C-alpha cells in the first residue's frame, strides 16, 4: 500500500538518479544566472561561477538528500504542511551552509549582531526561500496536472467499458425460456455462462488479465450463441498455447467474437465458421478474428464496437497496440495487436 500512495504525493522521489541529475542541472543553471548578474570588469568569471556552483550544489544536494530520506514520512502530512516543512529544510540547509562558509572560509566567529553577517545570512536565506518556494510550487502544479490526466483517462476508460448488447441479453433469455422445458440442464449451463458474462461486463476493473481468462469469456459467449443459432455457428480455434499467459485488457477478444456473430454469421441464412487465430510475433500478441459475410452487406454499422475497443487499447497501451479491420471480398477480418511486454508507464 505504501508504494501505491507515494505517487499521489507532490514531491518527486529525490532518491531517484533522474531527480538528482535534474536538481544538479537546475542548480548549475542558477549558478550561471547568478554569475552573469554579479560579474564585474575586474573579477574572474570562472572563479565566481565556481563559487556560486559550490554554494548552490551544496545547498540543493543536501536539501535533496534530506527530502529523499524524509519523503515517506512527509507524504503523511497535508500538502500545505509538507510544502512548509520542505521549505524549512531548504532554509536550514542554507543556514548551515552559510554558517560553515563564515566559519571555515572567512574564518570569523558566528555573530548575528554583526550587521554585515546578519545581511549575509538574510540575503542568502531570502534567495533560497524564494527559489525553493517557486520550485515546490512547480512540483505541486506538475503533480496536480498528472493527477488530472490519470483521472481523465480512467474516466474515459470507464465510459468505454464494453457493455452487453441488449439484443444479446434478450435473445439469450428467450433461448433459456425455451430450454427450461426442453433441456433443463442446458438451460442451467446457459444461465451460468450468461451470469459470468454479465458479471465480467459489470466489473469496472480495468486490470489486465491473462489471455486464457479472456478466451474463456469468449467461449462462454459463443456457447450461448451456439444454442441460439444451432448448426449455423461453427468456430475454429487456432491458438498458440504459449500465448495463454499474455496479459490483455478484459473484454478485448469477446467483443470481436460478438461482432463476428452479430454482423457475420447471424446475417447469413446458412451460417458459417468464425476463425480465431492467435499467435505471438516480435513481442506482440496477434489476435485475428475472421468471419464470413454477405457479399452485398447492407449493414455498415460494424464500426461502433470496434471503435470502442480501439479507443480502450489507445488509453491502456498509449499507441503501442492497434486494431486493424479488413473488409475482404467474402470475409471480414479484424486483427488486434497487443504488446506482450509492458513498459513502466510514467
Amino acid at each position, binding site marked *: 500500500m505504501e508504494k501505491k500512495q507515494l505517487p499521489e504525493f507532490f514531491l518527486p522521489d529525490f532518491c531517484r538518479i533522474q531527480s538528482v541529475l535534474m536538481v544538479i542541472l537546475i542548480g548549475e543553471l542558477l549558478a550561471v544566472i547568478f554569475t552573469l548578474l554579479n560579474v564585474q570588469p575586474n573579477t574572474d568569471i570562472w572563479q565566481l561561477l565556481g563559487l556560486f556552483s559550490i554554494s548552490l550544489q551544496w545547498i540543493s544536494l543536501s536539501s535533496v538528500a534530506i527530502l529523499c530520506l524524509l519523503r515517506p514520512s512527509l507524504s503523511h502530512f497535508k500538502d500545505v504542511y509538507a510544502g512548509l516543512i520542505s521549505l524549512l529544510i531548504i532554509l536550514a540547509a542554507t543556514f548551515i551552509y552559510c554558517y560553515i562558509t563564515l566559519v571555515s572560509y572567512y574564518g570569523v566567529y558566528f555573530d548575528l549582531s554583526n550587521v554585515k553577517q546578519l545581511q549575509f545570512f538574510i540575503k542568502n536565506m531570502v534567495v533560497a526561500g524564494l527559489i525553493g518556494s517557486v520550485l515546490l510550487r512547480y512540483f505541486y502544479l506538475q503533480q496536480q496536472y498528472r493527477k488530472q490526466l490519470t483521472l481523465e483517462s480512467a474516466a474515459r476508460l470507464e465510459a468505454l467499458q464494453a457493455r452487453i448488447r441488449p439484443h444479446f441479453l*434478450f435473445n439469450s433469455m*428467450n433461448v433459456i425460456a*425455451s430450454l427450461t422445458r426442453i433441456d433443463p440442464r442446458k438451460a442451467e449451463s446457459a444461465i451460468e455462462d450468461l451470469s459470468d458474462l454479465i458479471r465480467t461486463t459489470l466489473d469496472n476493473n480495468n486490470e489486465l488479465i491473462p489471455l486464457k481468462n479472456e478466451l474463456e469469456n469468449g467461449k462462454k459467449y459463443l456457447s450461448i450463441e451456439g444454442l441460439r443459432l444451432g448448426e449455423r455457428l461453427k468456430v475454429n480455434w487456432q491458438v498458440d498455447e504459449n500465448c495463454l499467459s499474455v496479459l490483455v485488457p478484459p473484454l478485448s477478444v469477446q467483443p470481436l467474437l460478438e461482432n463476428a456473430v452479430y454482423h457475420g454469421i447471424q446475417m447469413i441464412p446458412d451460417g458459417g465458421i468464425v476463425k480465431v487465430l492467435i499467435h505471438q510475433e516480435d513481442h506482440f500478441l496477434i489476435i485475428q478474428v475472421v468471419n464470413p459475410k454477405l457479399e452485398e452487406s447492407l449493414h455498415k454499422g460494424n464500426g461502433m464496437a470496434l471503435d470502442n475497443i480501439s479507443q480502450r487499447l489507445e488509453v491502456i497501451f498509449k499507441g503501442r497496440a492497434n486494431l486493424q479491420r479488413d473488409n475482404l471480398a467474402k470475409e471480414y477480418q479484424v486483427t488486434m495487436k497487443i504488446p506482450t511486454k509492458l513498459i513502466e508507464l510514467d
Partner: protein
Amino acid sequence: MKLLVVDDEPLAQQRLQQLLSELGFVSNIRLANNGLQAIEACQKEKPDVILMDIRMPGMDGLEAAQHISQIKQPPAIIFTTAYDEYALEAFNVNAIDYLLKPVRESNLKAAIEKACCLNQAQLSAVKSQQQGRTNITAKISGNIKLVPIKDVVYFQAELKYVTVKYLNGETIIEDTLKDLLTEFSNLFVRVHRNAIVSKKFITGIHRDHQGHSFVLLSHEKKQLEISRRHLSEVKKLISQL
C-alpha cells in the same frame, strides 16, 4: 385458425410453438426460417396469422411483411423481437402489433385475438426508416412474385405501368419511378424521364449520327436513350467506374 411462425432460430420457433399449442392451436402451426420462406408459405398455406421475427438473415421480417401485405386477402402479421429500438418506436407510432421475446403466454393470446391485417401505409412508414428492400414485388393474379433488386437491369415507365427488366425476364409492377429512385438511389441512376438504370450494369455510352446518346448495358441488348438533361450525370458515373 392457421398460424405461421417465422424465426431463424430453432429454439425461438420451438418456444412459440409450445406456447401456441398450450393455447390450443395444436395442429395448424407452420414454420418458416426467414422472410423468403415466409412469403412462399403464405402463398401456399394461406395462414390467418403470422408471428414473425424482425431480424432474420436473407430477408428480414419488415420487408417480408411488406411483400406479404400485397397478397390478395393478406394474413394478419404480429412481429416478435428481442430488442429493436428503432422498429419498436415506429411500431408504436403506427399502431402495429408486436411481441417482445421472451413472449408471455397472456400477451400472445391477446395479440392473436385482436390480430388484424396491416395496411401499406403502416408498413411503409416503418420500412422508410430502414434500408431499401432487397426485392420488389410484382403482383400476378392476386399472388406475388419477387424480383431480387440485384438482378434488375432497368425500370422503364410505359403508359400507366412501370416495366422491370431483370436478368431472367421482365414484368410489370405498380411502384412509380420516383419512389423506386428514392428507395434505391445508391444503386440506380436516372437516364431519362421514363427510365432508371442499375449502375452496375452500365458499360458505356453510344452516340448515334443524329447526336442522340444511348446507355450501353451488360446482359441487355436494348439501348435506352439518355436525355440531354441526364447526360452529364451518366457521364460522370461512367468516369467513376
